[in-house]
């Protein structure tokens, strides 16, 4: 094995990557602290972030819908394992966040309570970075934290898991 002949053939290609028009609008608005979803004209579901098409119906999405920066945890995992490039000291919680009025969850960070207290249905709100640091990124939201309100009933989000 060790004396097998080897060749090294470096490969490098540069790409220009475009986001869709919907994503452009989303990112431009998130820089201003607004979260935009977009509604499917067929199934009426609200996707966030805004995106080009409804993957269920195969049509372009329609109206933009401004969403609040609060919602619930649908499902989550507690990260206990250290890995290269990790920015937060474990244990911490990566969760699916379903904003009020949205039909699809996105992944974000939950802080502000011990990791073992995070629950499905827990009400949360965004903690934004200082406005001076806002860019065209969801990282403008530093994390989500519990609001302390009563948990949502499972039935209210069972269709979003």
């Amino acid at each position, binding site marked *: 094995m060790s004396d097998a002949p080897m060749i090294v*053939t470096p*490969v490098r*290609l540069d*790409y220009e990557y*475009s986001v869709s*028009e919907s994503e452009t609008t989303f990112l431009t608005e998130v820089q201003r602290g607004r979260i935009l979803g977009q509604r499917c004209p067929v199934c009426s579901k609200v996707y966030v972030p805004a995106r*080009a098409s409804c993957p*269920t119906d*195969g*049509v372009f999405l329609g109206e933009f819908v401004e969403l609040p920066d609060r919602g619930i945890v649908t499902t989550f995992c507690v990260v206990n394992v250290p890995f290269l490039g990790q920015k937060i000291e474990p244990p911490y919680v990566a969760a699916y966040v379903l904003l009020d009025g949205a039909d699809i969850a996105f992944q974000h960070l939950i802080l502000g309570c011990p990791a073992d207290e995070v629950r499905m249905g827990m009400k949360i709100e965004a903690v934004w970075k200082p406005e001076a640091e806002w860019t065209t990124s969801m990282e403008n939201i530093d994390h989500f934290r519990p609001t302390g309100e009563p948990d949502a009933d499972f039935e209210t989000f069972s269709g979003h898991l």
Partner: protein
Amino acid sequence: MRSVAVVGFAQAPNVRRTTGTANGVEMLVPIAHELYAQTGLEKRDIGFFCSGSSDYIAGRAFSFVMAVDAIGAWPPINESHVEMDAAWALYEAWVKLQTGEIDTALVYGFGKSSGSDLRRVLSLQLDPYYLAPLWPDSVSLAALQCRLGLDAGKWGEKDMAEVVARSRADARSNPNAQLSGDPTADDLLGEPYLADPLRRHDCAPITDGAAGVVLVAGERANEIRDTPAWITGFEHRIDAQNLGARDLTTAPSASSAAVAAGVDGASVAELHAPFSHQELILREAMGLGGEVRINPSGGPLCANPMFAAGLIRIGEAARRVWDGDAAKVVAHATSGPCLQQNLVCVMEAG
């Protein structure tokens, strides 16, 4: 064999650069809807979806999965993909139709060729040990092929210029063409070389685009089209991968595919020749004489969306049958460097 016909064809405008994403959704959503409108079929009527595209073009993994967003995968659909021009996806769909498992198929292909340096991206389809590490780009390889033919007296630069002049003129009646015009061969020969002996116009343009085709088996095709384009021959063959192992001035795999598919008697041929001299190679290899109208759409020298341009040849050829312009047509698609892989689809009326 089960009778299968091409009954629907749609394509995006072929352009040098779109602002859309690399997964083609912006181009593909209107294509699917146009195909449904043309055929009267709905999503739930489609038994099988099959696509052709390349992650190397998109610059991201699983770009074809993102593209499924364009067709809407609910209720669950039956779907497959080839990392080849969508003409080969159409072949897969045709085989699946032959099994009798399905009666209809929608085939699509897309390529945002402008996302990177296409000539370099295409180097990566070469053998990874001896050729790819040298980064011979696609235009330079075609230029070497062209030089071999010129030196052997197989064609001249004037012959190539005439191919380009005819293609550009025909493209004037194709609203989706990227390039068109009415240059004379002499005008074209006055242009500088891009990669001697190829001039810029001898090379297909870099094109962002997408296309879709609907296939239907049996009697149902007659309900959709007065004159469906029935597939009567369908073959694809491959020549040696090593460029030094074959005579680049010929295309034996195109010859044998053409014989097996039965191209004799066709009056129109849409050839996927991304370089002008390659059309000359293909005409000879496939036995297409002067009586055969070549690339009435303008062909790939006027629009060449990667991974869709071969499928477009099938759609454009089928259209001649639907319109009554031709009773028998040939569509050809190529893949790999210097016409290494060749697919021939013969379609006939009634």
